[in-house]
């Protein structure tokens, strides 16, 4: 099953490679991994999307907790949570496609953030599924380039992850 795991870790060089190394050394899946410093600059917040049986996920959280640089770990999928991903996508936009492309961006609440006479660059946020849906909705060959950040997650309501 797909799980989204959030962690706080010491904002130190090397902390990221400890987490990445753990996943590769133990053969765990990583679908995506995002990381950036938090409002407390001594800490980074990481979101990992992974998948595995319950036993594997239990081991993943235990192994993450064991890393000396990791301060806190939560499996967001255990409760209500929100996740978002950002995508920048450059699409073909010439001739009759140009209007159509703008309409598609509007429908998915995307924003056109760069324009040439042949292309648009669209910024889109949402769940991974929504971004997938957008890409699926485009015609074959319409996408020139796409870059996605991977999911960031946060608990709903009063669920707070902090030290």
């Amino acid at each position: 099953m797909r799980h989204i795991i959030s962690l706080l870790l010491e904002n130190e060089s090397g902390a990221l490679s400890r987490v990445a190394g753990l996943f590769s050394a133990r053969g765990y899946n990583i679908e995506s991994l995002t990381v950036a410093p938090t409002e407390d600059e001594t800490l980074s917040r990481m979101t990992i999307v992974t998948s595995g049986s319950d036993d594997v996920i239990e081991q993943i959280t235990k192994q993450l907790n064991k890393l000396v640089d990791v301060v806190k770990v939560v499996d967001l999928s255990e409760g209500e949570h929100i996740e978002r991903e950002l995508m920048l996508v450059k699409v073909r936009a010439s001739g009759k496609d140009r209007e159509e492309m703008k309409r598609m961006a509007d429908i998915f609440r995307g924003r056109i953030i760069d324009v040439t006479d042949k292309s648009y660059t669209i910024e889109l946020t949402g769940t991974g599924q929504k971004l997938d849906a957008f890409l699926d909705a485009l015609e074959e060959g319409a996408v020139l380039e796409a870059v996605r950040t991977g999911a960031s997650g946060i608990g709903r309501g009063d669920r707070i992850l902090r030290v």
Partner: protein
Amino acid sequence: MELTGAEITVRCLADEGVEYLFGYPGGAVLHIYDELFKQDRVKHILVRHEQAAVHAADGYARACQKPGVVLVTSGPGATNAVTGIATAYMDSIPMVILTGQVPTHAIGQDAFQEVDSIGITRPCVKHNFLVKDVHDLAATIKKAFYIATTGRPGPVVVDIPKDITMARCEYVYPTSVSLRSYNPVVKGHSGQIRKALNLLLEAKRPMIYAGGGVVLGEAAAELTQLVRSLGFPCTNTLMGLGGFPASDPQYMGMLGMHGTYEANMAMQHCDVLLAVGARFDDRVIGNPKHFFQEDRRIIHIDVDPSSISKRVKVDVPIVGDVKDVLAEMSRQIAAGTQKPDAPALKSWWTQIELWRARDCLKYDRTSEIIKPQMVIEKLWEVTGGDAIVTSDVGQHQMWAAQFYRFDKPRRWLNSGGLGTMGVGLPYAMGALLAHPDTPVACVTGEASIQMCIQELSTCKQYRMPVKILNLNNRYMGMVRQWQEFFHGNRYAESYMDALPDFVKLAESYGHVGIRIEKPADIEPAIREAFARKNELVFMDFITDQTENVFPMVPGGKGLSEMILV
């Protein structure tokens, strides 16, 4: 007063109470060596290969519980240390390894003798640090010792660039450490302990399986008390030998791939299993599918939550320090009124005695050729069962584990998790430094001993009177055994040709060598060796080439599917 990084490094070690530093010099650590030269609080042991520095420090730690400490130079010094570090990591041994590094401004430039020591060691350390500012140096070394020795112990690497050893700052050695991200649990959850006791006291066919955690956690006395008060059978893993006394009638012998018939059968057929500081290794339970064919409830005490339910699903997990948890269990049993189920226990022991009667460790005692098992039995007799025994890896290791009956912890030093050939002699060196008055025997094979043979020179320099028992079968016996059983007797590259004359070899290093070829000469040779109190004696026993280790659970088979003699 401001000190240099090199002075600070050495002061930290002295203030931490480090007795011995095992090392080998080189460019990146020359300033540190210069400071070592000027003081006498920390004694440096100069080995002949960095791998042996780490093994010797590791052996010291295994023998006396204090962390082993190592200093090596950058590049090849650090890479030579890696096998030693991984060996310590797999067996959870507390160590601090200081590696020299090229100056900070040269890092990443492919500088002379530069390797990414942090990157290379990351997967085989508990933690590692690169020191980037001399102001962080003392606090980092303190943290390294704290992390290495608390919770589940392990090796910690501190990588120190050369310019940091020359930079100056005020020296203060921190008295304590607190890390928000690292807080090992000590006390077991009392509700879980109560649940565990309920299961144990109701068990019909209970079994206690104790591992290296009992040795690491100094909990042999607590374990022994609990086992005796319950009257249950107890087995030890290879890493747990001595955690429960081998001479106790409740002792079942070692379990696992080369465990006794009775221990493996009881493990497979018990209805309640108490696992204490043991990690259900694949060499212990065999094929997990087969293990699960029998229905049993499992209680598991371990300080590392990730050891619990890693390979087998556990019913009652207890995260905590073994010493603490076992003592609490005994307290609750004493305070309660419930006693173990005596009639059930009686019939369980009747069954166990039937398994024991199989006499699974029997071998031909009338042989004209030396049987390796007999050498170990004689070693046990001559030393009164009270030597520190180190071993290398192979058949000789298994015979030492089966036939030297350890009654105390920290008397058996070997590489279990990584199975590193070459540890035996350096472990013996470390053990002798930790316990200069205890006889130390190194049981080895003609292949393993050659992996760190150069340390005979270190032994000469520091007058380390190790007694080496080389079980010389002219084969990588363990490899040969697998080839005999599973590869149609095709002995590919497992024959040891062109062996040195070990007697002359020992003599050339300034030691005593004895060659023993007849069973009747075993005991006199061992007696003579131990009588030579201050000399290293190399005993080269010419043993039966075809002997195999029994019982054996073949890889992929279940615990009760043993090959027996």
